[in-house]
């Protein structure tokens, strides 16, 4: 009998131990996540900005209709999950995308969320509503949307002009939160109201941003954190030192350079650091409307002179990616395979041979050892722009081009580019979504506001539409590769490299996923918890 009791006691104890272990290993409620922010965002309205400085602190305030699964690093169609929508369905003609909306969701001010809010948001984004955003940088994302219609309070349909399967990818981005109808765009800039896991508390410019847990969040048991506090520290040295000293639980995402990651690991060996592609491409914008770069031979020579690996080696200690417009695999979904990439002039592994070819093109254009071409290489006066521009100048010397650095303050950079007051420029292009529709239409379509070089090739533009309507992912991928190859051959906007940067966090921060093909979509933070 005693042994039976002992066995039962042992069994009970082991069950208790197992369950306690599970509990101890599982997510814990509570705690404030302390993170530093790299700069003070201009306002708090995600729709009115185009920098992830906005997404990081304010994405947790909102929900989208659909969202990329937050614990999967690579964003793809397969990782899109319902958010404010419970489900979605395409119409038979692939021209209608209908969402069934979640019921019982409340805005942070207590008002109910309905389909009217979704319609309001997208009408504003398409420029069709009375209320206007002060700035609307992603209006072109919805060029193919005819209108948004509601069917009752909990169903909404996007009616398209033509099939566009990737609309769903755009809707899943951190850049596509649903805004409340009853709050003006002006108020959303200063005091955003969302339905998300965290409520906005305050934003003190150049000082801090504070969020607190939304106790009425529709997702049971989330978020785990009581709040998030961002301290704005523009000085990178101070920020990193503060992280090392334990003042912060996490660095600003994808902001720590490769050498700094090494520093962090040496000073705080327990810190966890992950280096991931940012899907930001450093590229050259060429003013092909004026001499000398109206000559395709000179543009091609310049593209042939690039030693991309040298850029990556100098700037990222080898941790960067060579690719075309689309982020290369394995992190990128749509980038050309290496074998195809190397067939493009300038991408071949033999840099000397490429440069010999470039010299011949330069000589054909009338330049040579005795007659160098003097150019100004314009760029923004911040290190991520300036540093590669200096390397570019050095590399151009090898093909009789003498470059002079011409830096412009941020305030003057886009006006300068818009008035074509440059010969060549060093530019950075960030892709919010790893999808060709976002990249191609924004940066290369005729008349697009972000097509800084005014590159316009009607034949390619037709191909943009063909790939955009293709529902078979494999077929679409091949079309995208062909387009990307053609864009590089046309020297439309030569891509130099795709950068990688680090994110570090303390070991007690759990549930962090760094997205590997976008820096804009992974900041909901509802699954993040502190094990302390």
């Amino acid at each position: 009998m005693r042994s039976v009791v002992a066995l039962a006691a042992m069994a009970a104890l082991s069950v208790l131990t197992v369950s306690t272990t599970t509990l101890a290993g599982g997510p814990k409620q509570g705690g404030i996540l302390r993170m530093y922010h790299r700069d003070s965002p201009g306002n708090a309205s995600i729709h009115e900005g185009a920098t992830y400085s906005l997404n990081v602190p304010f994405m947790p305030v909102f929900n989208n209709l659909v969202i990329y699964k937050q614990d999967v690093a690579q964003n793809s169609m397969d990782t899109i999950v319902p958010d404010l929508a419970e489900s979605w369905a395409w119409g038979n003609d692939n021209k209608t995308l209908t969402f069934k909306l979640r019921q019982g969701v409340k805005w942070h001010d207590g008002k109910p969320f309905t389909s009217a809010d979704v319609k309001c948001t997208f009408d504003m984004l398409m420029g069709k509503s009375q209320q206007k955003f002060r700035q609307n940088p992603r209006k072109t994302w919805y060029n193919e949307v005819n209108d948004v219609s509601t069917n009752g309070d909990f169903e909404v349909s996007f009616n398209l002009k033509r099939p566009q399967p990737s609309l769903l990818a755009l809707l899943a981005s951190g850049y596509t939160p649903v805004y409340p109808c009853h709050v003006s765009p002006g108020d959303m800039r200063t005091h955003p109201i969302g339905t998300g896991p965290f409520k906005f508390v305050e934003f003190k410019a150049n000082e801090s941003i504070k969020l607190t847990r939304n106790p009425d969040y529709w997702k049971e048991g989330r978020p785990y954190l009581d709040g998030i506090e961002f301290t704005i520290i523009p000085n990178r040295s101070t920020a990193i030192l503060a992280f090392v000293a334990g003042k912060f639980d996490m660095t600003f995402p994808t902001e720590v350079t490769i050498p700094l990651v090494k520093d962090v690991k040496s000073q705080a060996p327990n810190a966890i650091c992950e280096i991931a592609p940012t899907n930001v491409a450093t590229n050259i914008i060429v003013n092909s409307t004026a001499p000398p770069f109206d000559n395709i031979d000179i543009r091609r020579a310049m593209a042939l002179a690039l030693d991309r690996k040298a850029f990556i080696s100098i700037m990222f200690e080898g941790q960067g990616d060579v690719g075309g417009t689309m982020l290369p695999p394995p992190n990128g979904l749509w980038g050309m395979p290496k074998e195809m990439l190397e067939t493009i002039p300038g991408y071949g592994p033999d840099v000397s041979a490429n440069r010999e070819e470039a010299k011949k093109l330069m000589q054909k254009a009338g330049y040579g050892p005795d007659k160098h071409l003097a150019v100004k290489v314009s760029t923004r006066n911040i290190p991520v722009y300036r540093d590669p521009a200096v390397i570019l100048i050095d590399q151009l010397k090898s093909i009789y081009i003498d470059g002079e650095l011409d830096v412009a303050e941020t305030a003057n950079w886009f006006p300068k580019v818009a008035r074509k007051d440059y010969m060549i420029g060093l530019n950075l292009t960030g892709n919010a979504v790893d999808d060709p529709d976002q990249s191609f239409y924004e940066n290369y379509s005729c008349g697009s506001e972000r097509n800084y070089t005014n590159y316009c090739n009607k034949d390619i533009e037709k191909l943009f539409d063909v790939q955009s309507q293709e529902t078979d992912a494999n077929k679409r991928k091949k079309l995208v590769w062909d387009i990307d190859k053609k864009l590089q051959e046309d020297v439309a906007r030569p891509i130099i490299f795709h950068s990688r940067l680090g994110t570090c966090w303390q070991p007690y921060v759990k549930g962090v996923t760094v997205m590997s093909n976008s820096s804009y979509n992974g900041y909901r933070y509802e699954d993040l918890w502190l094990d302390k």
Partner: protein
Amino acid sequence: MFAYLVRRLFLMLVTLFGISIVIFFLLRIVPGNIVDILFAAAGYVDPADKANLEKELGIDQPLVVQYLHWIGGFLRGDFGYSYVSEKPALQEILPRIPITARLAGLALLFSASIGIPLGVISAVKQGTKLDYALRVVSLSGLSLPSFWLGLLILTASVAMFGQMPIFNPNPQTWLEAFATYAVPAAAVGFRSAALTMRITRSSMLEVLRQDYIRTARAKGASDAAVNYQHALKNAILPVITVIGIEAAFLIGGLIVTETVFNIPGVARFLVEAIRWRDYPIVQNLVMFIAVVVVFANFTVDMLYAVFDPRIRYTD
């Protein structure tokens, strides 16, 4: 004396009026405005949206109209709204002033309390090893940029103590509050202390050679009485002038110190506002600083009379 005061006050008003014009037009000479920056940040330029925004902010109006609008508001106590945060400019500026004032005050205190005694010691012990050592320290203070010294302090703190003395907005104790300001104040005040020390030393050396000092010694006055009661009192005037100038100069040093120690004061805020071309913030803040500097100079002039009975401001 009264007429002198009135004249000085009138001159101060004229100076401030001149400064307001210089601030306003210098800001407009700098290329780009808030709208350019907002669109640069968004990565596109839409001419229609841009025109709407310029109209909304009133920066499409002629410069004279803009100036009159600003200065009229300033005189009425209406400081406008920040272009960036869209909050009242005063609401943005006011909470930051005490932070910078505390920091500047502590830095000046550090500068005077270290610089003056060490300057006196250095002068009294002229030519000794101690004098040379103190002169090396003062030269280092003048040579080290405050941002570099600040970074060095931060790095050393983390490496040696695993602690980081950056700004704590909610100190729990008086000591914590003091610590929040003390380290950055020391970093920025070190340069001022060095300057104060050098001026005190040279001024003291000059005074110590005077006949009345010899007379005091001959009468049997103690070293302390000679140095501090007779010599320092007469040597302090140039030091006060330098401290007055330093008070204004400190703003420059505070910009980098506030950045390095991440202190949300007005100095760093001003730089950010200039970067954003946030005219209402920059104009009002610079005017505020100008008022402080002009009054500081006025106060220094008045202090001359307090410290040197021979100085009398007559009509």
